[in-house]
Every structure is written in structure tokens, then in C-alpha cells.
């Protein structure tokens, strides 16, 4: 998977993009968030409050139960503030 981070999620993690092989046992967005939280450090900080995180898979908004595959582009970011 390509995993993208934007705004303060990116700042806390320290990178905007990384390639991650779908981890064993992770089947959906919620599972990936838990897996990232367990990495600790900036990841634990960025995902400390999952209610403040929005998720897009292949550039469309999705819910935490959205399934994941290795070909997906997954993006994590805060609520948007453009306009």
C-alpha cells in the first residue's frame, strides 16, 4: 500500500508518504490505524485520538470498516480547513 499523511498527521509522523505491505491480520482501516498506533513515537501521537482523523482510500472518503488491499492508496489527515 501507499500510505499518505497530511497536515498535522504528517508533521507528527515526520513523513508525508511511505510504502507499507498490508500487515498480517489487518483487514480494514480500523485495523491499520491500530497497527500504526502500536508503532509508537510520532505514530502513537498522530493517532492518539482517532476521532480527529479522516481517512481516504483511493482518494474517496471511507469509514473505519472499509476493507484494505495491498494495491490501495490510503490517506490519513485531520478534518479539512480549506475554502
Amino acid at each position: 500500500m501507499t500510505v499518505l499523511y497530511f497536515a498535522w498527521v504528517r508533521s507528527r509522523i515526520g513523513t508525508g508518504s511511505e510504502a507499507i505491505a498490508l500487515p498480517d491480520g489487518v483487514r480494514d482501516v480500523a485495523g491499520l490505524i491500530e497497527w500504526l498506533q502500536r508503532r509508537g513515537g510520532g505514530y502513537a501521537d498522530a493517532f492518539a485520538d482517532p476521532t480527529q482523523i479522516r481517512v481516504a482510500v483511493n482518494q474517496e472518503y471511507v469509514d473505519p470498516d472499509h476493507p484494505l488491499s495491498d494495491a490501495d492508496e490510503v490517506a490519513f489527515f485531520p478534518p479539512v480547513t480549506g475554502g
Partner: protein
Amino acid sequence: MIRVQREDFDLGAELDALADGNHRVGGLASFVGLVRDMAGDGPVAAMTLEHYPGMTERQLAEIEAEAHRRWPLEATLIIHRFGRLEPGDRVVLVACASAHRQAALAACHFLIDWLKTRAPFWKHEEAPDGGGDWVRAREIDDRAAAAWDRNEG
């Protein structure tokens, strides 16, 4: 039409082009968002708009398509800038041309309300003292966007 760009735009030229030569247009409504020198937390020296290339265009196109489903529109335009902007700079333009005044006005209001809660842009504000922080989303914007959900068929 959707444009996501670093550069400024010529407001008059964009609006004139939207109705140009189309004599079915009776009303042209527009909204321009500008960078203010004050925010909730104090003075703002500048801001930087980050966005998600690809998803931004896709979301804006979906928002625009939804406006065309809801109202009889002759033409629509959304321009959103990214990068570093200073107070007084234009950030965003939404414009709607329609045969009918109420359709143009309502669709313009809808576009900017939906855009503010759906288009993947994030503002990072710089204070005059050199500090800076990410702008937090406002509940009032969520309520404004949700009001259009209640108006859905």
C-alpha cells in the same frame, strides 16, 4: 470547471468568461474567500495551504457535479489556490451561472459550504512572532454543510 493552482486568478476575467456569449444566463453568483489578518487565536502574518493532489480535484469535481444535480446551472467554476498566501490574498473562488437568480445564489452558497468540509485542504497559519499552527476545523462549518444534507431530496 475545476482549477487547483498556486497562482492568483483574475476575478473579473473568470466571471466574465463564465456567462460570455450564453444569453440563457440571467444570474451569476460568486463567492471569493480571502486571507484575513486576524484569526480566532490572534494576528496572522501568512498562511500555507497544503492539499492532497488528485483527491482535491476529484472531490471538487464531485461537489460541482452535485450542484448541477440539484439546480439548473448553465456553468460553474471552482478555483482553489494552495501554497503560501498573505492577508488580502484570494484563496478560493466559486461561481455559478444560471437562468434563474435563486438557483445561482443557492448553488454558489452550497458549493462553498460543501467545499469547506470536503475538499482536502489544510491551512497552517503563521503568527507575526514566527510561531505557527494548523487551523482547526470549526463546528459551524460542519453545521453549514449539514444543512444542505437536510435539504436533499
